[in-house]
């Protein structure tokens, strides 16, 4: 739809070829992580619609909603007259992407698989959104922060055993193919739920047997039941994490959005897993 401005053909991260405007003016984001990337690239003035839970930065919440990540509202997307949409390969329904394509609305699909992939996605999006220099600068900053954390935890004497809990009932953790697994390993910990299943379920008994040194709980933003979870774990003092009072809460929005804030998540993890390396806090000092 729209006027035939200068266009070029690009290949998105799912391998689809699509024609995108040389200088997209009306952009719609189908995921909170994509919204965050567009803001960090300084292209928020072109955002005409975002998915429902796009709440960071706070200004993103003011933008018109086009339905939730899983249940996108095609009518609202079309009504925002986009000249380019950004979708994620796994989260967003495929049939919405194909329906929009049938309506001549280009949809650029991103598919980052790890931290490196997120930075590549940001560079590609920067290229498409005519913000390549900004993307390069942001990614360079992310790389240097990642390297600082890596250098720091390399000095750590041990790799604490981490149980990362993303769901309370049933208990669900994260396997190998996830961003959180990568972040835990990078922050100098061992992910106890490592395995082929992306989101493995655990019984209380299994967690006891794993004897985690640290238990990290994320679902805080969705209901604030952290105290209750901590009390439940506190009944099992045989778990080292319970004995040493290392049941900790993290903001799930930092960890489950493949966007620019993953590097903040990494720094938080490093501090929680290796508090001994952070007195005094070397990351703070360098800022």
């Amino acid at each position, binding site marked *: *739809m729209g006027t035939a401005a200068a266009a070029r053909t690009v290949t998105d991260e799912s391998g689809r070829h699509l024609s995108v405007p040389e200088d997209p003016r009306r952009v719609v984001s189908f995921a909170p992580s994509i919204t965050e990337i567009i803001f960090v690239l300084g292209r928020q003035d072109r955002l005409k619609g975002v998915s*429902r839970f796009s709440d960071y930065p706070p200004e993103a919440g003011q933008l018109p*909603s086009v339905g939730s990540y899983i249940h996108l509202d095609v*009518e609202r997307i079309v009504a925002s007259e986009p000249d380019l949409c950004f979708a994620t390969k796994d*989260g967003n329904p495929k049939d919405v992407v194909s329906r929009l394509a*049938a309506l001549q609305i280009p949809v650029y699909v991103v598919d980052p698989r790890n931290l490196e992939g997120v930075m590549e996605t940001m560079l590609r999006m920067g290229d498409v959104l005519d913000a390549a220099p900004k993307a390069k600068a942001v990614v360079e900053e992310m790389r240097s922060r990642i390297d600082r954390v890596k250098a720091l935890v390399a000095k750590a004497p041990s790799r604490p055993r981490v149980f990362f809990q993303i769901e309370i009932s049933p208990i669900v953790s994260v396997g190998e193919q996830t961003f959180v697994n990568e972040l835990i390993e990078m922050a100098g910990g061992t992910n106890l739920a490592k395995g082929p299943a992306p989101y493995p379920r655990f019984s209380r008994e299994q967690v006891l047997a794993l004897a985690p040194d640290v238990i990290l709980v994320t679902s805080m933003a969705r209901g604030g039941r952290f105290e209750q979870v901590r009390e439940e774990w506190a009944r099992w003092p045989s778990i080292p994490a319970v004995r040493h009072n290392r049941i900790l809460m993290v903001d799930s929005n930092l960890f489950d959005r493949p966007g620019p804030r993953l590097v903040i998540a990494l720094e938080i993890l490093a501090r929680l897993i290796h508090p001994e390396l952070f007195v005094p806090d070397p990351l703070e000092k360098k800022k």
Partner: protein
Amino acid sequence: MERPLLLKRLCAVSTLLVILLIAAIFLGVSSGSTGSGIRQTLRTLLIGPSAADPMSYTIIWQIRFPRVILAILVGGTLSLGGLVFQALLRNPLAEPFILGISSGAGIGAILGILAGLPRFPGVTATAFAGSMITLFLLFVMSSGQTLMKKDTLLLSGVMVNAFCAALITFLMSMTQDSRLHNILFWLMGDLSTADPRQVGILALALIPCFVLLFVLSNSMNLLLMGRDLAQTMGLNIKITTLTLLLVTSFMVSLTVSLCGPVGFVGLVMPHLLRLVFGPDHRVLVPACILGGGTYMVLCDLLARTLPEQGEMPAGVITAIVGVPLFIILLKRSSR
């Protein structure tokens, strides 16, 4: 009934219902998540794509219209499903959803989706297989004669539904497939995935079935008079019953594979239409297609306009209307 009289009644009923259907279609295409405007819609429909606003033209014709057509096809199919099963089983409470046939098709569809099959013909075929298996189960659980008894039939349906619900939860627990993200919505009966191409295929497949059921409508009248009488009137009961069962299950499976199991439409519409237009199936078959379509368009309209944010599955509305009616019918028939 005499032939000319029947034709006259048929015309009168159809005209009335077509007018209602057109009104419902108009309401359906004139409102949506980006707001509604009767005048705006009229202008877009009358003036065409050359009008100043190509965007609302796209929204009306490419987004809302396929969805309204889908609703008509689904509503017509499910109403017919109820009508056929009520006649075949001589039980006022029979309906594809209550009998568990929709759930069976649902299981088949989920397996098809998990196997990565395309919507047509793959998922439709697995859904059809699922519905046939549940139908077979129903017959095994209550052998021929007793199937007509209300309690046996209902209990069998409840059991089939419970088993299917358990199987669905089982499948969802065993896989962590992202393709199942949307499944909860779909399980309640959801029309939001109306893709113009798929709706076209659905229409092509369903319309011959509608015609076939209309051809068989007099046989349904005879079946209701009882087996012996029907046989003396020259009806081949076995073939007729089998054809009706197969065609209806096929139609229901088609809609389930696209929109999930929508419940109670087959209960509400046939009863309402029978109340208004009498028991003749030659009138009721077209009335169910048109009336059921109208009803579903309106239910889906409520489902997508009532919530302030997003929408709800249309099956929520049909269940809220249908379940109280079911209870009333149950009470009345047990007296």
